[in-house]
């Protein structure tokens, strides 16, 4: 699965040095995809905003712990993912994020998913994506939003690589099936 390189290097080192301008660039780049990802998991506008805010705060405070500046994106999504898990834990819905079935070995990379949606079908697409189990929805949303590699999705979700591969495989198959079933 190819990873899309950032066209312009992100100013992670400057942000680490405390530059507000660098932080502004980083957050501007990720704020909307991050919100979209969090919303996909918690399905509540204000809660999503709160979780994104908390993720930003944690990112500013803990950037020193990031070893590879090139992984800033997956690191930030990982923080947001942990915030979602904590939110679920507080509301007693943590089990929602458990896999419905054990990870089965998948040979090779999960196949590509070529979905192009007409403007009038956007709401239907979102609805179909939301019908997937949370773990699969999370993996597929990360794949769609940031084109993350399997390793990066594993970093974000904290799941083993094989599990991520399995989730993505099933998610793609299920979404394709749901999409083809639509009238």
């Amino acid at each position, binding site marked *: 699965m190819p990873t899309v390189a950032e066209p312009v290097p992100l100013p992670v080192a400057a942000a680490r040095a405390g530059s507000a301008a660098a932080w502004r660039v980083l957050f501007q780049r990720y704020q909307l995809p991050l*919100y979209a990802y969090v919303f996909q998991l918690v399905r509540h506008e204000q809660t999503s*905003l709160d979780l994104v805010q908390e993720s930003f705060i944690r990112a500013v405070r803990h950037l020193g712990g990031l070893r590879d500046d090139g992984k800033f994106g997956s690191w930030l999504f990982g923080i947001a993912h942990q915030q979602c898990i904590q939110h679920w834990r507080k509301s007693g819905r943590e089990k929602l994020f458990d896999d419905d079935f054990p990870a089965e070995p998948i040979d090779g990379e999960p196949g590509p998913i070529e979905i192009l949606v*007409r403007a009038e079908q956007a709401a239907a697409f979102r609805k179909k994506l939301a019908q997937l189990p949370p773990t699969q929805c999370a993996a597929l949303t990360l794949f769609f939003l940031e084109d993350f590699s399997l390793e990066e999705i594993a970093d974000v979700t904290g799941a083993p690589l094989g599990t991520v591969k399995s989730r993505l495989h099933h998610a793609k198959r299920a979404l394709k099936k749901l999409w083809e079933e639509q009238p």
Partner: protein
Amino acid sequence: MKTPKEILLETHQVMTPRLDKLREDVLAAELGRNSDAVSEKRRTIFTAIPLKLWNELIWPSRRAWAGLAAVWVALAVVHFSQGSSSNPSPSALDPQMIAAWDEQQKILEQFVNERTQVAEKVSLPSAPPATSGKSAESFYANENDWA
């Protein structure tokens, strides 16, 4: 036709102004807080060290320090009061010392002159001029004449 990414981002595009405000709030709070913490730490260093020195080094033995300070003040007073009367002025120099100084200067000049003269006498005469090729040729020519 749109990609899933475009669909997902467009759905939440309306949240951008709120996300912008949220971002600026976080930056103002967190980066401002960090700089406040740094300046507070700096201020603490500059005030805490002298205070600690005062509390642990000066204050417990304040009588001893006060005694030492009094002695230093007394010494300073004595020094300055004596110093103003004992410093000789240039005009009050002993004439004998001036005469001895002149004598030493004369001896030094004499010694330097003698040394220069000895050096000129001891120096070697100038080296003879180098034998030119022409004189060598005439020497061999004369030798041939003898043969």
